[in-house]
C-alpha cells in the first residue's frame, strides 16, 4: 500500500508573467484517495494539467514518475495510454450525443471497418453499471442532470482501464445527494485498486474521504497530511491553505436597520416555450434595503430561472406578474432595463454566460457600465484601467495585470471578476447566483465580507445558494423554492437545516 504510484518532483511551470508552480513535489500512494487543496490560483489545476500532458513535456521543468517509470507525456493520449484519466473542472461531454456515444468518443470500438454499435452499447451499459448510473445508454447527455453527467464522465474514464483517476472539483456543481453518491463511488473504486486524486474546495468532503491531503499555496507544496495519523482537520487544512488562522467562516453580522422594499415580485408566473412547461408558479417575494435574502432549494428547483425571468428575461419565457422597484411598478423587457432600474445579476455559470473569456480583466469589469468611463460614447482607456485596478485591489483578484485575459485566471479569480463587474454597475439590488461556487475559504470570506459591507451601505442582496451552511450563515431571511414555487419563508432566527430541507423537498 505504501509504494507510490505517482511521484512528481520539482515541477516548475511558468506562464508569461506568472509562475504558476515552483518546485512542486507531489507523491501519491497506490490505491489511495489523495486530495489536493489550496486557494484559488494556487496551481492545483495547472499541476494536474502538467501530469496529464495538457501542458506537454518540455513546457515545464521537473520529473514525473508514474508506476515507477519516468514519463514524458506530450499530449493527453500519452497519459491515457499510461493509465491516467482526468476529468476537468468543466465537463467535456457533447450534449447532443447519446450517453454511449460520449463514453466511447475518441475511443470507438471498431469492427472490421465501421463502428460496432451493438458492442458499444453493451459495453457502455457495463461502464454505467460500474458507476451505478441507471439510465438508458441511448439518452442524450443534455437530457441528464449535472450529477448524472458527472457520472457519465467517470464511466468514460473507467471504460479506458485507468489506474489513476483525477477529478478537478467534481462536486462544485453537485447537490448534497449527488456529491455523496460520487464520494461513495470513489470509495468503491478505491476498493478495486483505482488510485484517485480529488481537487475540492469543500473541506467537509475532503475530511470525509481523504486518505492523504496535499496543500498547495502560491505554487508551492506546503505539506502533505495523513488521515490515518489524524492530521486532516479543518483547522489544519485552513491554516496551511491560507497561511493564517480563520476562526469565523462568516464575518459577524452588525445590527442594522432594514429599510424600504427595494425589489418586490408579485404573482410571478413563467412558462418556458423551449421546455414546454411552467417553470415558476405564483412566486411572491421581496428584498429590502440593508438585508441579505437567501434563496435555498435543490438544483433544478427554478431559482436561476426566477433570477433570469426578473432580470429582463433574456431567455424569452412567457411571464405573468408584477415587479415593483422601490414601490413603483416596472416592467423589464431586456436586461438593460433591469440594470438601469438598479438591479444586477451575477450569473451562476461564469464561463457560459458571465464573462467574455477572450477579453481581459479590465474589459470584463467595465462591460456592463461602459458609459461610466466614457465621454460622449468614447471610452477613456486610462480611466478603465484605474477602475479595474481599484477592484483588483479591493476584491484581491490574483492576476499579474488587469490586461490579463480572463481565460488565464484560475476559477476563483474569474468569479471575483464577475462580482467586480456587477459591483461597478453600482446597483441597489444585487442578485448573486451561487456566489462562492469553486471559491476557496479565504476568498469566500472576502466575498462574504464584501456582501456585508454592501448591505450596510444600503444595498439589498438576493443570494441564491445550494450550500445550506452558507445560506444560514449569511442570510437575514430565507425563501425556500421547490419545483418553481416558494414553499416557505423563514426569518434567520427560526431557520435550521432540517426545516429548509423539508420545505425544499416537498
Amino acid at each position, binding site marked *: 500500500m505504501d509504494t507510490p504510484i505517482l511521484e512528481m518532483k520539482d515541477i516548475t511551470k511558468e506562464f508569461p508573467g506568472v509562475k504558476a508552480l515552483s518546485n512542486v513535489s507531489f507523491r501519491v500512494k497506490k490505491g489511495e484517495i489523495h486530495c489536493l487543496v489550496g486557494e484559488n490560483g494556487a496551481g492545483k489545476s495547472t499541476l494536474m494539467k502538467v501530469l496529464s500532458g495538457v501542458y506537454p513535456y518540455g513546457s515545464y521543468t521537473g520529473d514525473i514518475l508514474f508506476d515507477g517509470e519516468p514519463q514524458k507525456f506530450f499530449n493527453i493520449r500519452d497519459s491515457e495510454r499510461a493509465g491516467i484519466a482526468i476529468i476537468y473542472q468543466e465537463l467535456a461531454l457533447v450534449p447532443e450525443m447519446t450517453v454511449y456515444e460520449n463514453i466511447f468518443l475518441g475511443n470507438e470500438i471498431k469492427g472490421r471497418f465501421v463502428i460496432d454499435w451493438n458492442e458499444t452499447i453493451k459495453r457502455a451499459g457495463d461502464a454505467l453499471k460500474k458507476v451505478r448510473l441507471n439510465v438508458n445508454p441511448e439518452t442524450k447527455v443534455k437530457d441528464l442532470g449535472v450529477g448524472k453527467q458527472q457520472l457519465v464522465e467517470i464511466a468514460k474514464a473507467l471504460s479506458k482501464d485507468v489506474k489513476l483517476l483525477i477529478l478537478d472539483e467534481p462536486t462544485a456543481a453537485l447537490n448534497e445527494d449527488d456529491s455523496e453518491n460520487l464520494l461513495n463511488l470513489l470509495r468503491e473504486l478505491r476498493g478495486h485498486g483505482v488510485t484517485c486524486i480529488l481537487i475540492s474546495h469543500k473541506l467537509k468532503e475532503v475530511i470525509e474521504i481523504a486518505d492523504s491531503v496535499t496543500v498547495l499555496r502560491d505554487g508551492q507544496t506546503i505539506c502533505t497530511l495523513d488521515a490515518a495519523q489524524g492530521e486532516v482537520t479543518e483547522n489544519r487544512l485552513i491554516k496551511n491553505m491560507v497561511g493564517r488562522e480563520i476562526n469565523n467562516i462568516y464575518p459577524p453580522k452588525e445590527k442594522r436597520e432594514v429599510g424600504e422594499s427595494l425589489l418586490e415580485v408579485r404573482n410571478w408566473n413563467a412558462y418556458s416555450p423551449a421546455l414546454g412547461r411552467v417553470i415558476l408558479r405564483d412566486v411572491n417575494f421581496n428584498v429590502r434595503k440593508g438585508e441579505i435574502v437567501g434563496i435555498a432549494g435543490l438544483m433544478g428547483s427554478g431559482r436561476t430561472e426566477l433570477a433570469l425571468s426578473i432580470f429582463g428575461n433574456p431567455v424569452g419565457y412567457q411571464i405573468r406578474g408584477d415587479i415593483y422597484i422601490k414601490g413603483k411598478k416596472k416592467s423589464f423587457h431586456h436586461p438593460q432595463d433591469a440594470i438601469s432600474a438598479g438591479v444586477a445579476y451575477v450569473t451562476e455559470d461564469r464561463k457560459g454566460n458571465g464573462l467574455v473569456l477572450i477579453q481581459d480583466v479590465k474589459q470584463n469589469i467595465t*462591460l456592463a457600465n461602459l458609459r461610466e468611463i466614457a465621454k460622449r460614447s468614447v471610452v477613456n482607456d486610462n480611466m478603465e*484601467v484605474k477602475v479595474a485596478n481599484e477592484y483588483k485591489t479591493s476584491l484581491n483578484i490574483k492576476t499579474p495585470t488587469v490586461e490579463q485575459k480572463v481565460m488565464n485566471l484560475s476559477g476563483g479569480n474569474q468569479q471575483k471578476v464577475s462580482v467586480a*463587474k456587477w459591483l461597478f454597475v453600482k446597483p441597489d439590488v444585487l442578485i448573486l447566483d451561487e456566489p462562492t461556487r469553486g471559491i476557496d475559504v479565504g476568498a469566500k470570506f472576502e466575498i462574504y465580507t464584501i456582501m456585508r459591507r454592501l448591505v450596510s451601505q444600503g444595498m439589498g442582496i438576493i443570494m441564491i445558494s445550494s450550500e445550506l451552511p452558507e445560506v444560514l450563515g449569511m442570510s437575514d431571511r430565507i425563501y425556500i423554492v421547490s419545483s418553481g414555487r416558494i414553499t416557505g419563508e423563514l426569518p434567520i432566527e427560526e431557520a435550521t437545516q432540517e426545516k429548509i430541507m423539508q420545505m425544499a423537498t416537498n
Partner: protein
Amino acid sequence: MSFFTDLQKTLRQNIREYGMFIALFLIMAIFTATTDGVFISPRNISNLLNQTGYIAVLAVGMTLVIVIRHIDLSVGFLAGFLGAIAAIALTSWGLPVYIVIPMVLVMGVLAGCITAFPVAQLGIPSFVASLAGWLIYRGAILLVTLKTGTIIIPDEAFNAIGNGYISDIPGLDSFLPELHKLTLLLGLIAIVFYIISEINSRRNKIAYNFEVLSSGVFALKLIFMSALIGLITWVLAGYNGLSWTVVIVLIVVGVYHFVTTQTVLGRHIYAMGGNPEAAQLSGINVKKLIYVVFGSMGMLSALSGILFASRLQSATTTAGTLFELDAIAAAYVGGVSAAGGVGKVTGSIIGALVMLSLTSGMNLMGIDISLQYIVRGAVLVMAVVFDVATRTSGK
C-alpha cells in the same frame, strides 16, 4: 545590445500583428524583383490602390460581421445591384450626383437591415439569410439591366470617384513640378500626427505605470512607420497624387478604426462576438447590434458598388461577382477569427492589400489566371494557419 533583445522580444510578442506587414512587404519585394521594378512604379501602385478600394470597404464591414460570429454572402451582388441603381438614377431618372450617392447609401443600409431581420428576430443563420440575398440581388441586377444591358454612365463627377485624383495646391506649378504637392503635404501632416499621437499615448501609459516599448524600439517603430507613410506618399505624389478612392477608403478605415477601438459601440460589438450570452446579460442589446453591423455592411456594399461602377464608368450585368469572397478572404488574411470577438479593421485592409498585390503582381508577370487562383488559395490557407499557430503558442 539590450536594444536587440528588446527588439526581438517585441517582435516575438507581436508576431501576429507585424507578421502581416512583413508578409505584405515580402510580397511587394518579390514582385518588384520579378517585374524589374514595374510593380513598385508609381503608376502601378496607384492603380493597385484604386483597385483595392471597392474590396477594402467591403472587407472593413465584413470584419465586424465576422467578429459578431455571422457572415454576409449577399454583399457582392448587392454592391453590383446598387451600382446599377446609381447608374439608372443618374441616366434614366436624371438625378444629380449629390442626391444619388446618399440615396444609394441609404438603400444599402436598408438592404443590410433586411438581411439582419430574420437573423436578429428569428435566429435564422446568417449564412442562409444572406445566401438568399445573394440569389435575390443577383436576380435584381439582371432584372434592372434586362433592357439596356451595360449602362454607360456619362456623369463626370460620379466617374471621378473611381478615376479622379485630388487637385493640387494652385499657384505652385514651378515648385517641384513632377510631384503632387498637396499629397506630399498631407503625407507630412499624417506623419506628424502619427508621431505626436504615439508619443502622447506612450506618455500617458508611463503616467499610469504601464509597460511600454523601450525607447530604442519605440524610436525604431516611429521611424519605420513614418518611412512607410513617407514612401507611399512619395510614390503616389510621383504619379497623380491621392486618388479620391484612396481618400474615401482612408476615411472609412479611420472612422471604423475609431469606432471599433474607442467607443462604447465598438466595445459592445467585440463583447458580443466574444460571448453573446454574457453580452446580453450585461445589458447589451444584441439584436440591435446585429442590425447595426449588417446595416453598416449594407452601406459599405453600396459604397463598394458606387466605387466599382464609377471606376468602370458603367454598370454591368456581372458587377459584384465574387466580391463577397474576396472580402471574406481579406478579412481572414487580416487576422479575423471565425470563433468571434477577434479581428481588426486595419488588419483586414492589409489583408485586402495582400490579396490585391498578389493579383496585380501575377498579372504583371503574365501568370495564367488558373495559377493565380491556386496561389491566392494557398496564401489564404497559409495566412490562417499562421494566425492560428501564433495564437495558440501565445498561451
